[in-house]
């Protein structure tokens, strides 16, 4: 999609794009927009404190000699809003609109640029059912007006409802293209292609034995960090046993990270309710340091902005969550600290000239190992790993799987969130399936398959 809309310029990719029967060579976004290709990203690109009209004509102002003609701007915006079926004054601040209406403003903005090809990336992910329906109807209407749309979506029922043709892409390559006009498309067919069938031995063997219940989360409810009325986690219950690797499957935005972070010291959300028990005892996890003391660790999915202090050396990152372990009376023992880091560098096979290297200079896989080292040094009972292998190469992935297996052999509990289903199937003893903030299913390793996980998600 980024190639198509000119985010990645011509020449930075291989292959050719033909648009209107011509070879397209977009230099940048402005260039592709000129040709009538507009992309609407999953995260909306609106300025919240500007009005609808200002947003619609942002960068494309109705102006004479640099002076904006507000009458013209508001009149045109009014027309566009009627077109997309949004009943709001052009002067309303975008901030005041819900996500669904904001989506419509984005489309109005696209229409203002005489769009011919509209690309929507997961447009309904954040929308309620009725807003979604309205949006899909609008797309059909645009189709009638001669605007082509590409919709990227996980929601197969929506795709089936409006698409004339469906292309399934997996791991960066096209799996299949189906034409709805020649024969009706079934969801099963799409799921089959989404899942694929290659399950090689990419996961190290592990002796699977689950011990006593280590962690129990009961009736866990969380509300959105900014919108207090939006509940993001609905009464989640889960257990992790000693030596068990438990997966949480789900789509992006299904609430997996929110669940994990809210458990770990209420690092996400508000009005959190529910209990967490470790080894049968209720524990206080209301602050991060308390959660760590209780025996929890959370390895974030966003290591660069939430996991590491990039400008500091490895040694200072490794000891950060357990400074007490390398100090006495608040005074650091730097020799001890260096020794600890050195130990983890060897154990984790972190490839670096020395532990005094700044972590910003390490590769993604080595950075992830630093984050893991940090949390292992904090000596937790239960580790929550959020996308532990995102953005790292195959070799490092295999090493991290090995580390996870070792943890389970030591009797630790591992709760692993991943968007890569083969990874979950290859690693986990049990998999919870999450969708829209609810744990909608639980599968044992024997029961689990990509088809079953997918169908738990899409039949909703």
């Amino acid at each position, binding site marked *: 999609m980024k190639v198509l809309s000119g985010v990645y310029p011509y020449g930075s990719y291989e292959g050719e794009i033909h648009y209107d029967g011509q070879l397209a060579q977009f230099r940048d976004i402005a260039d592709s927009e000129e040709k009538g290709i507009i992309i609407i990203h999953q995260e909306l690109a609106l300025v919240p404190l500007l009005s609808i009209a200002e947003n619609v004509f942002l960068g494309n102002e109705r102006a004479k000699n640099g002076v904006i003609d507000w009458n013209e701007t508001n009149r045109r915006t009014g027309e566009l809003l009627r077109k997309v079926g949004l009943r709001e004054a052009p002067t309303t601040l975008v901030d005041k609109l819900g996500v669904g209406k904001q989506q419509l403003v984005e489309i109005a903005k696209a229409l203002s640029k005489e769009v011919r090809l509209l690309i929507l990336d997961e447009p309904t992910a954040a929308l309620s059912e009725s807003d979604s329906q309205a949006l899909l109807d609008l797309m059909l209407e645009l189709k009638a007006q001669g605007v082509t749309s590409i919709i990227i979506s996980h929601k197969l029922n929506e795709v089936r409802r409006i698409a004339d043709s469906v292309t399934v892409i997996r791991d960066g390559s096209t799996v299949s293209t189906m034409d709805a006009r020649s024969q009706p498309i079934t969801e099963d067919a799409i799921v089959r292609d989404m899942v694929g069938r290659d399950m090689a031995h990419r996961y190290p063997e592990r002796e699977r034995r689950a011990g006593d219940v280590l962690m129990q989360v009961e009736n866990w409810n969380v509300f959105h960090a900014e919108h207090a009325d939006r509940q993001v986690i609905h009464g989640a219950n889960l257990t992790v046993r000693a030596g068990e690797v438990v997966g949480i499957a789900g789509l992006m935005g299904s609430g997996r990270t929110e669940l994990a972070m809210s458990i*770990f*010291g209420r*690092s996400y959300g508000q009005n959190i309710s529910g209990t967490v028990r470790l080894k049968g005892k209720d524990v206080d996890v209301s*602050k*991060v*340091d308390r*959660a*760590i003391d209780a025996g929890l660790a*959370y390895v*974030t999915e966003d290591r660069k*902005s*939430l*996991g*590491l*202090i*990039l*400008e*500091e050396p490895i040694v*200072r990152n490794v000891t*950060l*969550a357990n*400074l*007490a372990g390398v*100090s006495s009376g*608040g*005074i*650091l023992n*730097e*020799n001890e600290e*260096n*020794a600890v880091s050195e130990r983890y560098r060897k154990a984790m096979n972190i490839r670096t000239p*020395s532990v*005094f290297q700044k972590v910003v200079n390490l590769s993604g896989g080595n950075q992830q190992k630093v984050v893991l080292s*940090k949390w292992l040094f*904090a000596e937790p009972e239960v580790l929550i790993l959020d996308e532990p292998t995102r953005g790292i190469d195959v070799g490092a992935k295999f090493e991290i799987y090995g580390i996870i297996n070792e943890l389970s052999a030591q009797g630790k509990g591992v709760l692993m969130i991943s968007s890569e289903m083969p990874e979950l199937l290859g690693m986990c003893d049990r998999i919870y399936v999450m969708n829209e903030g609810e744990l909608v299913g639980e599968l044992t390793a024997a029961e689990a398959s990509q088809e079953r996980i997918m169908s738990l998600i899409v039949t909703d």
Partner: protein
Amino acid sequence: MALAENTGDAKQGIGAYLLANLREYGLLAALVVIMIFFQVVTDGVLLKPVNITNLLLQNSYIIIMALGMLIVIVAGHIDLSVGSVMGFVGALAAVMIVQLGVNWLLTILVCLGVGAVIGAAQGYWVAYWKIPSFIVTLAGMLVFRGLSLWLLAGQSVGPFPKEFQTIANGFVPDVFPAAIGQSLAPLFDARQVNTLALVTGVVAAAAVIWSGMRQRARDKAYGVEGEPTPFFVARTAIIAVALVFIMYKLSTFRGLPNVLITMGVLTLIYAFLTEKTTLGRRIYALGGNAKAAKLSGIKTERLTFLAFLNMGILAAAAGLVFAARLNTATAKAGFGLELDVIAAVFIGGASMSGGVGKIMGVVVGAFLMGVLNNGMSIMGLGIDYQQMIKGLVLLAAVIFDVYNKSRQG
């Protein structure tokens, strides 16, 4: 052949090390160069014992506040109120001692307490309400300036009793028998010699050399690649010689100023605090990446609060020193001083975005500004030129930082 390759490698190693640490060496070198420059253009006035004493007294309150400011800036914030707080505390001390006749020791304690309360009040809004520190302390700057005016009712209040004045203007009495000093005097061609100052200089120099060597030995034991030997020798030599030289100069005047001791002890305490304690480590982590620090169990709010609390106490201490030095409290005291303090911290190598900066860098930065001020004043340069030059030096130092960082990638 093999030998040639080796030396090539070594040279590259030294070159790379110099590039990586250009900032620290550059700062020290700049201070030395500026001192030599002014020493020459002022016909030796700059390094006269009386002027060195002056230089220390003039910059003492800046350095005391810069120690706290470094911590605030490392934590990712700023405090614009320190000049006003300093002035306010000075005014409070004057009113208490001169007008109300309160005991001077009690006054000092009360003033430091008031500083702590002021710091806590500002830190509370910044830390727990997430109000930008720029705004909170800008407000504080206005409020406390107003309060000092109100407190002094537009008057200058003074003079202070002798005991209070000694905070800034006193000298440490020579504990060694006067006979030693008298017998040393002819050696240095001086009227009298303060043996304590001389001994302190030699001991301090020895301590610098010893701790440097110990650190190197430890680094070696752990296989850490430390400073290349030539740099270590040069840097340590400069510092040791400078210490002995300054102390020698002081010893031929009136000896060790009390303020120098206060400043020295505070500098050592804060250097230790920032580099060797978990508390210091956490502050750097907070400034480096607040979110990651928080997710590592660090109480980021409390740390921010403490940084401002500490700043308040140090601003109060500076206020006492300043009032004692001028022997009077005026409503103008501390006006615009926050900018000198902040400039010293940035010249000393701290980063605007937090997480970076060292106590020693800040002290050198403050002295660099101090020598510039002092040297230009002796030269008789107008305040107009002085301001312009100081501004350009600050800009140059920060441009150098940014350039240095972008070049390293």
